């Protein structure tokens, strides 16, 4: 397999972007990424998108996006793994370049959630429709059940959960593309309206529109395009039982653990080598469970780690310097690519107020549904 590099990035702001449709968002992010490296010709496009069909009545996003980018003809494929769609698109692009099938690949993640659809129902289609959704559980409800199990088993507290939201808002306040650029206090989190007990509104990522794009090419060609290529050192993908009831331990995210294990192994790194990470904090409890599944901390100890400030900027392992899904926003199909962009900016030393000093190895972890799929990428400055 060939080594693969990210040579350019582009991203819309995340938020309620009423003026932009799905195709507009994609084109805006893609043009930014292309123009930054002199608009080279593209060999293939992968579009990560969870549910264009249900959100805006539009499937077949590969050709639609190629067309609107002025690139009709170019191979273009949409990939979906619920909220991990963006990360999985990145993996498909990575394999395409690694295989030697394509040289320059454009990987996009895009979602238009604020366009009139019933968002609660659409997001629930990432869970098992027959055994879960039918009975009345919602997507926040599934993570609420994970939270309650984690609390019962490890003594994790509402304060621990709130600390995740507080930290991520603090980070996001420094990110010009974030949906919410305001800090919140633990008290605000813990008194916000209840969504699914014990999760409140400020434990939940918002409903967002947005697109994110990265350009990939073989590492050996990367310096034709940029002085600061970022190598994708490895990619790991895994699944777990679809329904929460079918997982032996609802507090442990097997898919994350497996995907990370594959990425660590094929990248030849250990968790302690990671200096900065973007993880899938769709709900505050998710960040805690993910930190444990990534082996950044012992099982059950992520709440304590967070309250101790170790996952904040300046801490031992800064997590979600972008603001995470919570503060940056979560246009579901775009998130995985946006995570990669934050790591690229960190490894290039271009993260401004959010910069982790001297970061050379970073990780991005993206997750679908209540954890039935997860994809992990490890990046390094070269």
């Amino acid at each position, binding site marked *: 397999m060939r080594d693969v590099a990210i040579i350019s990035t582009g991203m819309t702001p995340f938020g309620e972007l009423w003026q932009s449709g799905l195709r507009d968002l994609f084109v805006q992010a893609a043009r930014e990424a292309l123009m930054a490296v002199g608009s080279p010709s593209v060999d293939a496009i992968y579009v990560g998108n969870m549910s264009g069909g249900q959100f805006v009545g539009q499937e077949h996003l590969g050709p639609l996006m190629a067309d609107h980018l002025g690139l009709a003809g170019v191979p273009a494929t949409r990939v979906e793994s619920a909220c991990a769609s963006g990360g999985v698109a990145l993996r498909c692009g990575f394999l395409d370049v690694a295989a030697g099938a394509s040289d320059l690949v454009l990987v996009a993640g895009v979602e238009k959630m604020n366009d009139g659809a019933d968002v609660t129902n659409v997001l629930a289609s990432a869970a098992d429709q027959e*055994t879960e959704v*039918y009975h009345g559980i919602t997507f926040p409800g599934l993570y609420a059940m994970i939270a*309650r*199990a984690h609390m*019962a088993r490890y003594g994790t507290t509402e304060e621990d959960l709130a600390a995740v939201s507080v930290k991520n808002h603090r980070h996001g306040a420094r990110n010009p593309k974030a949906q919410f650029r305001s800090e919140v206090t633990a008290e605000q989190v813990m008194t916000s309206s209840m969504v699914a007990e014990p999760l409140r509104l400020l434990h939940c990522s918002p409903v967002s529109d947005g697109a994110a794009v990265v350009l990939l090419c073989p590492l050996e060609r990367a310096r034709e395009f940029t002085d600061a290529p970022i190598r994708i050192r490895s990619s790991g993908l895994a699944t777990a039982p679809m329904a929460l009831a079918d997982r032996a331990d609802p507090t442990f995210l097997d898919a994350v653990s497996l995907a990370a294990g594959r990425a660590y192994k094929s990248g030849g790194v250990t968790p302690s080598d990671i200096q900065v990470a973007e993880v899938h904090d769709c709900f505050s409890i998710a960040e805690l469970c993910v930190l444990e599944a990534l082996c950044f901390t012992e099982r059950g100890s992520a709440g304590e780690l967070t309250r101790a400030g170790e996952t904040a900027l300046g801490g031992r392992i800064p997590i979600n310097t972008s603001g995470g899904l919570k503060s940056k926003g979560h246009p579901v199909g775009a998130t995985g690519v946006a995570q990669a962009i934050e790591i690229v900016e960190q490894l290039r030393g271009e993260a401004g107020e959010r910069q982790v000093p001297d970061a050379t190895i970073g990780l991005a972890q993206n997750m679908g549904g209540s954890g039935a799929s997860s994809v992990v990428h490890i990046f390094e400055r070269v």
Partner: protein
Amino acid sequence: MPSPRYWREIPSRYRLEAAACRGCKRVIYPKRQVCPQCGGVEFEATRLAHRGRVVTSTVVHVAPTDLQMEAPYAMAVVETEEGVRLMVQVADCDPSEVLPGMEVTLEFRLIRKEDHGGILCYGHKAVPVE
């Protein structure tokens, strides 16, 4: 008129029909073609006991459209005596009392009225044991 999707699930939802793997003895609900534990494909038909214990739970405040009139309501993952876990609503109690460890029975109930046609959809809900 109930859709095929609905009536295909009737055996599991109405009668709690399950399958016991001949290989590893695990009970699978709803039944499947392949045992997720051992990969076995031979099963004996069985029905779940109507009794179990809450593994984890939540109270849904922001509900899906079809269930908005019922919110807030409690949902739980219940483990039956056979070691099977299933997602159910918990009825006939104060939702805030539904916590891990609670003992419940499974009772046949109306689950939801679907869509504009108001199709009545049935299944099981959990009810706390006195």
